């Protein structure tokens, strides 16, 4: 009975067919590869002025229209990615049932007709008769760890075996991994955001500045379903997103690699001491973050990404004063550059003459050399001090963050450098990406799938032993869906063993 197909079925059938074509996959792979090049040739996401320096205004207009300046997020590129994924998904769904039935199908003995169609087979005469031949074959199969079945009919025994059926799944695992990566990326774009936050030492914030707004929020607010929590700032054009908690930078430090005469100018690590507070101002936890070791809270991650000096702001010099003898940890003294403070425990006034960004003490002469650093990075902050008793200047000395020698400390206490605090900000990259675990699952499957796909193969092996007047004729036939050469090597070795 023939039923009339509706338009919907017809169309969906067509669409399915279109997407199940491997030709489309090849075309899409090539097209994706080619158009991806455009975005590497034209720099992405630069300010317009820079493009105008590079190209004529007409070209800039055309490129702008085509979305070439942010190509990987342009609608047509995303559409191509969608098509590719749809293609992959349909292709996989279409073939999967067939693969499954190929895996499940029980192996049967082979008949003469089917044997003819097997391209790889060997035949040999076995002297000792059929029973002996069978014993030998069984032994050979067992020593190779083949699990096999056997059937016998008059004048013929068949041993047959298959292995690696599940390797047929390898391709699907691989394809699913690519689909997962794509789904994960989409999830991230819809429900995640990317932003940044520059926090001065001692400052806190409850918002971050967005580079990419979550698409879902945008969509919902455009549709009027719900209001986006993003705060638009028409003046700067940078949108802010409330975090729902406070983040504070207590301290920021850069460590430098040490050379033979003090620190080199090469940073070995940046770190920020961060504290998370709830909106009521109660402290939740502290964490010291580094590059490669971020802070995570409520799905939001803070990465150490950069740092800088806050223009026009002077920091505070933090010193430690403790007695030369005894276990005492001493006390902290905080000074402005050029300022002074009376320290009761030692009955002295300490005056900070100023801070230099990079000093080093000569190990033998004790002389301090000051280096001009190219920017105002505090490679090895060095503070000149003048010590007073009342109004009377006693001596001057210099303390350094990293000191190869000993600062001059004639009296019964030691002053040491602790920090130059408050003049710098830490640059944090802030993201929320709920899709990342989907992507990582995809990566994991990508490690596994291809191994099965490439190195496994579904092999089938038949050994037919026919009795011909007391002589046995042994036929070995084998098929594999992949790695034919390997199969041939194995079967040749087997045949050699049988004919010995």
């Amino acid at each position: 009975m023939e039923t009339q197909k509706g338009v919907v079925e017809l169309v969906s059938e067509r669409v399915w067919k279109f997407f199940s074509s491997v030709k489309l996959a090849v075309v899409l792979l090539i097209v994706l590869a080619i158009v991806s090049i455009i975005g590497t040739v034209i720099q992405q996401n630069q300010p317009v002025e820079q493009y105008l320096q590079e190209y004529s205004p007409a070209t800039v207009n055309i490129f702008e229209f085509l979305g070439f300046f942010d190509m990987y997020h342009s609608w047509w590129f995303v559409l191509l990615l969608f098509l590719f994924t749809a293609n992959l998904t349909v292709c996989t769904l279409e073939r999967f049932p067939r693969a499954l039935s190929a895996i499940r199908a029980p192996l049967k003995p082979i008949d003469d007709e089917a044997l003819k169609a097997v391209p790889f087979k060997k035949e040999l005469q076995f002297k000792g008769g059929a029973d002996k031949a069978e014993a030998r074959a069984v032994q050979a199969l067992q020593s190779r760890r083949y699990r096999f079945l056997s059937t016998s009919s008059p004048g013929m025994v068949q041993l047959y075996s298959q292995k690696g059926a599940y390797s047929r799944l390898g391709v699907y695992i691989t394809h699913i991994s690519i689909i997962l990566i794509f789904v994960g990326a989409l999830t991230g774009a819809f429900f995640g955001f990317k932003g940044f936050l520059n926090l001065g030492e001692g400052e806190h914030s409850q918002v971050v500045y967005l580079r990419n707004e979550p698409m879902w929020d945008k969509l919902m607010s455009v549709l009027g379903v719900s209001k986006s929590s993003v705060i638009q700032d028409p003046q700067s054009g940078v949108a802010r997103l409330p975090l729902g908690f406070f983040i504070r930078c207590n301290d920021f430090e850069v460590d430098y690699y040490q050379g033979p005469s003090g620190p080199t100018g090469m940073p070995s690590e940046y770190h920020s001491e961060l504290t998370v507070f709830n909106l009521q101002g109660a402290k939740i936890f502290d964490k010291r973050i580094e590059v490669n070791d971020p802070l995570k809270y409520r799905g939001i991650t803070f990465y150490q990404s950069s740092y800088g000096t806050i223009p026009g702001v002077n920091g505070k010099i933090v010193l430690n004063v403790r007695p030369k003898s005894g276990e005492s940890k001493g006390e902290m003294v905080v000074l402005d550059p050029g300022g002074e403070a009376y320290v009761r425990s030692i009955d002295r006034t300490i005056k900070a003459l100023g801070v230099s960004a990079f000093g080093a003490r000569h190990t033998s002469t004790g002389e301090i050399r000051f280096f001009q650093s190219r920017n105002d990075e505090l490679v090895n902050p060095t503070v000149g001090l003048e010590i007073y008793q009342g109004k009377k200047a006693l001596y001057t000395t210099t303390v350094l963050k990293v000191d190869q020698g000993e600062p001059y400390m004639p009296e019964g206490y030691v002053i040491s450098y602790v920090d130059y605090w408050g003049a710098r900000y830490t640059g944090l990259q802030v993201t929320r990406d709920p899709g990342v675990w989907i992507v990582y699952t995809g990566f994991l499957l990508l490690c596994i799938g291809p191994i099965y796909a490439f190195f496994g193969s579904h092999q089938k092996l038949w050994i037919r032993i026919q009795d011909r007047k007391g002589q046995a004729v042994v036929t070995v036939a084998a098929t594999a869906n992949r790695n034919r050469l390997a199969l041939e090597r194995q079967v040749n070795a087997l045949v050699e063993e049988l004919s010995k």
Partner: protein
Amino acid sequence: MDSSTFFTFATLFYLAAMILYISFLIFKKEAVGMAASGVTYAGLAIQTLALALRWIESYKLGIGRVPLSNLYESLVFFTWSTVLIYLIVEYRYKTRAFGAFVMPVAFLALAFINVADISADISPLVPALQSNWLLYHVLMSFIGYALFAVAFAVSVLYLLMDTEDRGPTGNLYLALGVIASVVALGYILTGMGAKVVFWLGVGVLLLAWFTYLVVAGARNRSQVYLFWSFCIALVAGMLLFMGLDYVLFQGRHLPAEETFKKHMFESTFLSSSRAVAVLCWAGVLAIFYVVWSQGLKLRTLLKQFLPSPEHLDDLTYRMIAIGWLLFGVGGLAMGAVWANSAWGTYWSWDPKETWSLITWFIYSLYLHARFVRGWKGTQMAVISAVGFMGVIFTYLGVNLVLSGLHSYGGL
């Protein structure tokens, strides 16, 4: 003794191996072949020792990091993995025919490091690179690169064996003419500030040719012949001129990374002297000419040594399958995981990432063409060679060409 002494020993062993493998091809004495293999094993052992020593040295300097993160180390490691893979192939396929091709590359690369006095200092790592992912990422990508290089060499040999017919000499002159005019046009357009147009044009031209080869390669043999000559001339020319450039260019006293990223080819192709640039291009054309016209002799010579074309095809597939997997997992996925742990984005479409992806797509295409459409032989070898050009571009071109395209800021 320090690691660099051992590297020098390894270089000498590879030189000996190269001479032995070539003598083996010419004199066909089994004993010479055995000696060649023996010397190569010894060279690899020495180089392995040197790598281990360098690793230990970095700990002694208080830096403690994998010897895999500057130009010096990457060249050394590239050589090491190429020789290793070669020896595995030699063992598995029982043929010494490739040695005469692989060992010169290994020797030249190591010798180049010595001649060019590329800085062997063990420099510390910037914070973003201090991650265990660096080890896995770089290690796997490099082995991937090396596998693709071997696949490339084998597919070029396949193509060489594949074609007896190189067509009329007119083909060669046409090709030389095209190269000469494209280059001239390049200089003119660059002078006019239209570099982008030029490179896009070159890209389109190459793509059209590659597509033609893949579609019609099995039929039009003389184009295939031209193609492999082009491949050999490209790689040989590039290696030669890179070496020359290092020797000539004062910039080699700059930190190696800097030279490599910003000043490559400045004393040869990009020399401010017209005469030098013209001479260099004449050199490229000459290499192309020689390769093209001597190819058939090479073919006759090699024919008796090489495994059957079917084996070459299979070998290419194996190298690509493993390389594709390592590069996909190590280069793309682990690179992404690392980027995410350091910066909070696993993929940012920067040119290096994008080109890696493009290269990986080309090899994905190879795998699908083979398994789904059942392609074999010539077309596969062409795709493999094109894939390797993607590798070269990812490794060098992104720094050389792309960063040169933008008047403002490098990459």
